[in-house]
């Protein structure tokens, strides 16, 4: 493998890790507050569709992004209603949201565009253009550093940088602010938070709302940044991989970044090398495609050591009377 191939690989690693990272941080907020969210996948899918559809109709990717975030937050609201207000089963609610998104996106896109569950291809201002960071061209002649900067750091859409900046921001919000302390406490011991006079329901809805916003950005990036249209089922399990990355990262923002980069890298390898020869045996393309999913299972099997979820995760909070 030469340097140019490596650069390409790392470049697409960053691109493919971005939606995972946003979804992973989305799950982080939700699960830290004690709400399990299997429905990340559905929210990504819904946002991918609505951002692409609205961007196509309005011609502005920013309006599309808002629509995507709106749809994702609406699904979050359903999840909150089911799992916080009515204390239902959070897994079942998440599964329902995934199916809801999977069905509605195709039904609505068929009605609006009649292209069998796609949106028309997006052009110009209807999609996120790649940004060239300053000095990218100037640094290009510098060996190693120049191409690294030009290809991997520079030249992505703005949402990639948003995702990367969300990592330190999440860390700061969760571990350095009063809001973050309360949010984490709600996920560990809601009764204690309640005793302190803070609304458990309010904190959890706030967390679920943040989760919706981040999933919305992830979905918008899929359809308007990474590719230029919505295609049926385009989330392709990313919501679930993000959940696995979250467990791998043991519910910590910086580790989430590393975990998502790893999964992004695997995805990039699977895309780049369709037929790999290893020790004279040709590894089939289907294996390479299944590799991220297999790795999720391997990681969950505990090659990472013990991952302890937030203690009140998945449990509805019932106020004592």
């Amino acid at each position, binding site marked *: 493998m030469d340097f140019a191939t490596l650069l390409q690989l790392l470049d697409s690693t960053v691109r493919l890790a971005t939606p995972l990272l946003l979804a992973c941080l989305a799950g982080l907020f939700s699960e830290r507050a004690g709400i399990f969210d*299997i429905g990340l996948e559905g929210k990504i899918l819904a946002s991918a569709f609505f951002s692409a559809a609205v961007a196509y109709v309005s011609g502005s990717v920013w309006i599309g992004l808002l629509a995507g975030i709106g749809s994702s937050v609406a699904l979050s609201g*359903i999840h909150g*209603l*089911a*799992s916080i207000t*009515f*204390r*239902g*089963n*959070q*897994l*079942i*609610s998440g*599964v*329902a*949201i*995934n*199916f*809801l998104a*999977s*069905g*509605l996106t*195709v*039904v*609505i896109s*068929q*009605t609006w565009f009649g292209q069998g*569950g796609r949106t028309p291809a997006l052009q110009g201002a209807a999609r996120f253009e790649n940004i060239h960071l300053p000095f990218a061209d100037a640094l290009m002649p510098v060996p190693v550093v120049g191409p690294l900067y030009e290809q991997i750091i520079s030249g992505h859409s703005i949402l990639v940088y948003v995702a990367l900046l969300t990592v330190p921001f999440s860390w700061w919000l969760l571990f350095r602010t009063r809001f973050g302390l309360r949010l984490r406490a709600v996920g560990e011991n809601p009764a204690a938070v309640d005793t302190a006079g803070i609304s458990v329901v309010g904190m959890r809805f706030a967390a679920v709302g943040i989760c919706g916003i981040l999933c919305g950005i992830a979905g918008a990036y899929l359809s308007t940044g990474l590719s230029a249209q919505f295609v049926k089922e385009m989330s392709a*399990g990313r919501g*679930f991989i993000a*959940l*696995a990355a979250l*467990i791998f990262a043991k519910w910590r923002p910086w580790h989430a970044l590393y975990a998502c980069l790893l999964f992004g890298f695997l995805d990039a390898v699977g895309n780049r090398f369709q037929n790999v020869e290893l020790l004279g045996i040709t590894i*089939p393309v*289907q*294996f390479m*495609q*299944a590799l991220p*999913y*297999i790795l*999720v*299972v391997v990681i*969950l*099997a*505990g090659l990472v050591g013990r991952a302890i979820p937030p203690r009140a995760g998945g449990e509805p909070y019932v106020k004592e009377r």
Partner: protein
Amino acid sequence: MGRMPNWADVILIPLVSVILALLVSGLVVLLIGENPLEAMTIMVRGALGSAYGLGYTLFYATNFIFTGLGVAVAIHARLFNIGGEGQAYVAGLGAAVACLFVPWPHWTIALVAVVILSGLFGAAWAAIPAWLQAKRGSHIVITTIMFNFIAASLMVYLLVNVFRVPGSMEPATAIFPSVTHLPNAGEFAGFLGFRTSTPLNVSFFIALLAAFAVWVLIWRTRLGYEIRAFGHSETAAVYAGINPTRIIMVTMLISGGLSGLMATNAVMGEAEQLRLDYVQGAGFVGIAVALMGRSHPIGVILAALLFGMLYQGGAELSFEMPAVSREMVVVIQALVILFTGALDNMVRMPMERIYLAFRRSRTASHQPAE
């Protein structure tokens, strides 16, 4: 605080939930710009109005009984198996191997072999997630979903590279030998108006049998008792000497096996070859069916019939109303899961209040005021 009687819990609440789900679905149809009542009429007529439609409805229902029972058994142990899709898909391989490579003398013997092999293959695909849950605590929801994706890749590989008929472009196995043909409703119930082209076949009775077997297992055997005890409280079950690893493994194997039996109906009974993506979401429908049927075999059968109607009716609907895409069924399925599963309390709490108020007013009128 009083409680509602059992019949309200088993019948009334699921019924109200399903009606709510259908109302919201109707709203979606309305927003698309079609008439929901007309859509409903087309669906019901398409599903039940002819022997042709009924054959498909019952054929789909057979699939959903198998996958629904699979999910239901797991729910009794509080395991949420969403891998029915992958388990049924891999089980198709078992059915294909049984039909293709053994020269059976008669279809009855072949059927027994296919039931066993597809069950085993389905169970095998559930075994790894089950073991990981039992031994390593890996979340079974995520691992079973991953196994759905892995199954899809594996089956594409096998169908394209191993089982494809040489010279054929289609990623599917060869057509099974004619001796393995299962009698379909046109052959054993032609007097009811079924044609010989109907997909409904004897597997329907196997599904009913499986439902009965699940009832016996859960409520009439020691293992079933242990499964339910484990589902209610793991700590109590361990205290009572129940081995959690064994229960998780056995329950998941049964669950995967039941989903796998779907191959009997769809692969051996209908297609008579294993095709790419033959499950077509039936594994996921099983989740809705099990939740709606309250994990009881009779409930599962009734819910499976409803979803069979939705699937067949939905196919007719997308034919007659092109604006309504076939995925509308997935939306309805999602809403049924949402209302019967996740929003259960939303329906239950007001109904409990109404029931208690009703009872209070009745007892008050019966007892004369002092």
